[in-house]
């Protein structure tokens, strides 16, 4: 199983296009950090006011726009290219001659894409933390989202790590949704558009599902002390439903 996961990782990362996507992502993160450096403040997009950017809040504040790009456009490129692309090009017909059980191919692909997502997340976390310490004013306190009580630097570490963990989980929700869609639409063009349309319109049913397009505010709400039951219910429910649809479809699909 480890060998097939490793093979999937190589298939993802040995491609020049994946590396270009990764470099473009790094440029995007740097550009957004630079824009915060120029302005010195961050205007939150949902009318929550303006925040002064410092070393403790940069790693999560910068993700307001980065997460929007990542979830709406960048990660679906990787997911659809790997899931639909391999089915559509016929690569799986050869690939599945290898002596593994059918579900292991599915699991390995999803685990490899999850690991790639973690790489994207980890990169932005590292860049955010380093840029915060090097280029932004050092502060001894920071304000959590929606709170007026100052928190200590040790809280900041936990807050940032929790933010990135939940963001990674949201990315995995998107991955599972993509996997369910791609197994029904093996043509990449249609798969990408259907995922985009679902992401844009699903939140009309349940507001927290806006996480499939613009997750920042929902994650911040989920991080509050009182939590956000709707967020966890939507994320967990969508992952479960998508896994069931994707797995059932994969087991029955004629490759």
């Amino acid at each position, binding site marked *: 199983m480890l060998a097939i996961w490793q093979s999937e990782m190589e298939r993802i990362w040995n491609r020049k*296009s994946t590396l270009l996507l990764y470099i473009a992502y790094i440029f995007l993160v740097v550009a957004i950090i630079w824009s915060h450096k120029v302005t010195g403040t961050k205007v939150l997009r949902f009318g929550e006011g303006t925040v002064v950017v410092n070393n403790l809040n940069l790693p999560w504040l910068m993700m307001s726009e980065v997460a929007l790009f990542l979830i709406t*456009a960048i990660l679906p490129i990787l997911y659809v290219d790997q899931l639909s692309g391999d089915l559509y090009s016929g690569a799986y017909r050869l690939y599945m001659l290898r002596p593994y059980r059918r579900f292991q191919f599915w699991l390995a692909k999803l685990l490899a894409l999850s690991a790639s997502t973690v790489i994207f997340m980890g990169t932005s976390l590292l860049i955010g933390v380093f840029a915060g310490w090097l280029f932004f004013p050092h502060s001894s306190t920071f304000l959590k989202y929606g709170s007026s009580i100052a928190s200590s630097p040790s809280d900041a570490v936990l807050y940032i790590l929790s933010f990135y963990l939940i963001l990674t989980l949201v990315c995995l929700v998107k991955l599972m949704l993509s996997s369910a869609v791609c197994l029904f639409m093996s043509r990449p063009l249609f798969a990408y558009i259907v995922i985009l349309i679902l992401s844009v319109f699903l939140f009309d049913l349940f507001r927290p599902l806006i996480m499939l397009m613009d997750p920042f505010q929902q994650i911040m709400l989920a991080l509050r002390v009182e939590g956000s039951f709707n967020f966890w219910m939507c994320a967990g429910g969508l992952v479960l439903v998508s896994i069931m649809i994707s797995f059932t479809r994969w087991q029955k699909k004629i490759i």
Partner: protein
Amino acid sequence: MRTREVPVEVLSLNFVVTGLRENLFLACNIAVAALAAAVYTEEFRSGQLRLLFVRRFTRGQIFWSKLLVLNVSILFLLIVFAVSSQVIVEVWSLSYDISDAGLSGSQGLQMLEYYGWALASLLAISSFYCFIAMYSKSVTYAIGVCMVYNLGSLLFDSLYLKLASFVSHIPYLHNVIAFMIVPYMQHTGLDRSLMGNSSVNGAIITVVSLYLIFFTWGAYRRFVTDDYLY
């Protein structure tokens, strides 16, 4: 959407234009990106073009015919959009008992003018998307890069406009630089052009021409010179 809060009675007055104004800079651009990826990247990367080149037409002729199909499709989709918007207005006028739902002469002219500018902006962005489509490794990358460009230009236009403000003393040049971001031109420039501002109109024409010449040429060079043997 800005129009969600507007009452139907007000919305129905100019819905054909308002509907396009709301959708032009994102939904229409994504549709154009999908068309460009389908017409160019898919055939370019799947190997279908190799068979197409066996036919007696030159590569240049095939490229221009594809571009023509793409642009005619955009025109057709715009007409469908206008007609279906007007049908919605008619349905509203029946169900909400609105008396003055028909298009007056001046409204019709304004609509034609707006749709003309919208078509020009979509032709400009279609050239750019063709360029991206020809240089993309797969359909997913083609449409994804177009999406990133579109989202990026909508989110970062304020930063870019700071750069453009260096030449704010020359309105025409300022507009040309600002409108180089086509989605910005679509949601801000086209409204200003309807007010009859000649420097805005000139800037839009310049930007559209530049896009058509530069990016169509780039896509054409790629199309006719690649060996397609991989």
